């Protein structure tokens, strides 16, 4: 039996929604399922109306379902708000004593969550554990894996808290068994316990990828949705000999990272659009001084403060063109967490090999969403530091010139203080020795030297991922976090008798010199799918390939695409 169950947990900020979703995510991942979790939160600390949606599937999944099979309402005030997303025979769990909402639908289960929480868990906050236990009973799933996970999750917070969570979950489970026997709807069959797969979100995967790729210095200023990257690095810093320095602002953060990069360590910062605005001055500095720099920009809807906790792909053109003047850079945009992990290593390799900035674009949907990943293979990570010259490789350092002319544009890089050489780096136009110059001849040569790196990068930018491989008359074109939704959309289209292919870019700029387009462009109708207003990538694609897209399917309400939404719009445009 194919399993594809979505559970929406709703309530106020501070009610432990994310704690339930991540616990469920881990339980089902360990039982052999694939899980995808989105977080839909308002920009506030307490109150409001938030939800997480957990999708559990027997096959890999990287997108949300527009509907939910289960609705778990932790808060009485907003019971009716999410009812429209419930499937026709979907199950709702709510606390009838906390709301005036009444229902004679046999699939709407009123459970005294608060009363049970106070009795079994001593605290009102245990409502989330009670509801989870109740949901497990309704899903027909064994309670044991949940109890084990609760013990593990709260181990660090003391025996008592773990025990209260367990007794609350058990009480919720028992209440359903005793009161609603035989009335459960969509069931989740038992799995087989295995502890191999990972449950990880985009931010964690980026931070983990960076650390495994040799990150030594991080500086940042908190900004949603990038902050979890910094928090992950900070937590790992002591064990893995990393310095994580909280900066006074994003300008300081990126300049500290450039200082560390000049010294010769792998260094990065992460921010969102507004913080990246402040960093643009330094982006040019890294380009001019030829200092490796990695910046993660986790996009959120702008302009200005925009929708701070929601998602958008509105900063692609900004990332491609940010800062004054012309200099080479690379822009990467991973499609999912596993790709984010590996692309971080690629970002550092590119930054060091080409001695220039690399921007990795995420967004709230990619960064905050959890997914089950089969494996992250450390042996697949390669480290390439480019033309860094270490002590033992230096013959004569007396006349070292930091910016000596090379056909590739890449000059050997000596790290200051590690040899007797002295290194001059300058933000002014400079001679090959790094001193300020006004010479038109030198200026021309230095501009050419820097820009030649772009040609080198273009040659090694990877091809887009084409899925499935069978040629189709319809191509969905997209980039970054659209990966999961587009991939599933082409599968759904296939099922509906409309053959389609996905063409997904994760290595965006400079546009790849690989000959992929001959394969997919011939005769196909191209529909661009993007989480922005103007179809920023589609226009860039047209500029680079000469191929126009037939339609743009765009969404800019701050919410991610569900695959079915794409399918519906494709059918509309056909």
């Amino acid at each position, binding site marked *: 039996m194919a399993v594809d169950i979505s559970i929406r947990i709703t309530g106020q900020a501070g009610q432990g929604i994310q704690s339930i979703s991540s616990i469920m995510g881990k339980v089902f991942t*360990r039982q052999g399922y694939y899980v995808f979790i989105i977080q839909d939160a308002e920009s506030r600390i307490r109150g409001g109306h938030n939800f997480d949606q957990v999708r559990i599937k027997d096959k890999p999944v990287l997108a949300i379902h527009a509907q939910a099979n289960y609705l778990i309402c932790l808060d009485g005030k907003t019971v009716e708000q999410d009812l429209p997303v419930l499937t026709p025979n979907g199950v709702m769990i709510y606390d009838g004593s906390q709301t005036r909402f009444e229902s004679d639908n046999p699939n709407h289960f009123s459970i005294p969550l608060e009363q049970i929480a106070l009795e079994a868990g001593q605290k009102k906050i245990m409502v989330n554990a009670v509801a989870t236990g109740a949901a497990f009973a309704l899903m027909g799933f064994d309670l044991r894996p949940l109890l084990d996970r609760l013990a593990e999750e709260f181990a660090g917070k003391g025996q008592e808290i773990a025990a209260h969570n367990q007794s609350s979950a058990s009480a919720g489970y028992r209440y359903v068994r005793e009161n609603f026997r035989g009335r459960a709807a969509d069931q989740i069959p038992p799995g087989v316990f295995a502890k*191999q797969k*990972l*449950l990880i979100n985009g931010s*964690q995967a980026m931070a983990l990828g960076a*650390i495994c*790729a*040799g990150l*030594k*210095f991080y*500086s940042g200023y908190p900004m949603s949705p990038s902050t979890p990257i910094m928090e992950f690095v900070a937590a*790992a*810093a*002591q*064990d893995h*000999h*990393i*310095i994580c*320095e909280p*900066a*006074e602002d994003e*300008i*300081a*953060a990126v*300049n*500290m*990272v*450039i*200082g*560390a990069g*000049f*010294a*010769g*360590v*792998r*260094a990065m910062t992460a921010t969102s659009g507004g913080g990246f605005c402040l960093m643009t*001055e*330094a982006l040019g*500095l890294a380009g001019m001084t030829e200092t490796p720099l990695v910046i993660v920009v986790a996009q959120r809807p702008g302009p200005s403060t925009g929708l701070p906790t929601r998602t958008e792909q509105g900063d692609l053109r900004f990332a491609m063109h940010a800062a004054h003047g012309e200099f080479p850079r690379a822009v990467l945009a991973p499609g999912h967490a596993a790709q984010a992990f590996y692309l971080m*290593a690629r970002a550092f390799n590119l930054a060091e090999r080409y001695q220039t900035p690399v921007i990795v674009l995420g967004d709230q949907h990619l960064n905050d969403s959890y997914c089950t990943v089969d494996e*992250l293979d*450390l*042996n697949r990570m390669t*480290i390439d*530091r480019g033309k860094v010259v270490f002590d033992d490789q230096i013959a004569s350092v007396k006349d070292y010139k930091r910016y000596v002319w090379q056909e590739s544009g890449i000059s050997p890089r000596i*790290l*200051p*203080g*590690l*040899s007797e*050489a*002295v*290194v*001059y780096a*300058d*933000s*002014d136009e400079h001679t090959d020795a*790094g*001193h*300020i110059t006004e010479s038109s001849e030198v200026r021309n040569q230095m501009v050419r030297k820097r820009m030649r790196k772009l040609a080198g990068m273009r040659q090694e930018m990877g091809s887009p991922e084409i899925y499935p491989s069978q040629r189709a008359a319809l191509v969905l074109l997209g980039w970054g976090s659209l990966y999961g939704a587009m991939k599933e959309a082409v599968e759904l289209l296939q099922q509906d008798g409309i053959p389609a292919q996905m063409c997904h870019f994760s290595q965006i700029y400079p546009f790849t010199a690989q000959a992929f387009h001959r394969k997919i462009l011939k005769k196909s109708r191209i529909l661009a799918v993007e989480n922005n207003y103007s179809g920023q990538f589609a226009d860039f694609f047209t500029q680079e390939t000469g191929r126009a897209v037939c339609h743009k399917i765009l969404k800019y309400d701050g919410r991610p695409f569900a695959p079915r939404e794409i399918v519906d719009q494709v059918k509309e445009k056909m």
Partner: protein
Amino acid sequence: MVTLQEFASDDPIAWCPGCGNFSILKALKQALVELQKKPHEIAIVSGIGQAPKTPHYLRCNTFNGLHGRTLPVAAGLKLANHELTVLAEGGDGDGYGEGGNHFIHAMRRNIDITYLVHNNQVYGLTKGQTSPTSESGFITKTTPSGSPVPPMNPLLLAVACDCSFVARGFAGAIEHLTDLIRQGIRHRGFALIDILQPCVSFNRVNTFQWYEERVYPVGEGEYDPGDRTAAFNRAQEWGERIPIGIIYRRERPTLSAQHAAIARQSLVRQPIDPTGFPGLLEAFQ
């Protein structure tokens, strides 16, 4: 034996004849020789302006970055390779205007950097506009009726921020300045040396003569730079008499000393091994 000759740079100097910067360069070189630092052991991070050209004119590692952004670059460099002796250098516009926020937080961090601010109370390279330290009433192209606001007091701000080494030098007192720079570099922590530097092209008020008539060294023995209240008072002295010397000094842990990651080895000397992180992955299983 390190000699002055080792610091000789062949980059032609682009300062105005008679500029106070020449004396500061001389004092800096002399201090480095006295400390027996080798050029490759030193890194100077500078901003944009006339003062930030200084590192081009002596042989040492140099990062000539952006206007106002010297201190964060210097902090990143120092944390990545704390074996380097790191200095930051810029003018009053660079450090106290554009970089004001970084200045405050560098002092708070107590990162082990010596910060030389060439303070000429005017913007030079942009050819004569008011600066954060311009005196009230100072007439420039951007304040044709005279600056309506009082100058900021960097020393007072530094004492308030508990900057661990606060000093003022004068370009016209080279030996005194040499000694201050030497002490600043030796000091473990953030050392601010605000240097009164006459601008011969755009400041006709605060000239060499104007300063010479006013500056006096705070007396050794009679003044205790460890006394913060005394430092507050001394830092406010300006006008008829202007104190030079170490105004405030306090030992407190440097930022580098507080990072366990570099307790045994600088970051830049630590090897990269991507296979060394299985524990991190397990946490997600």
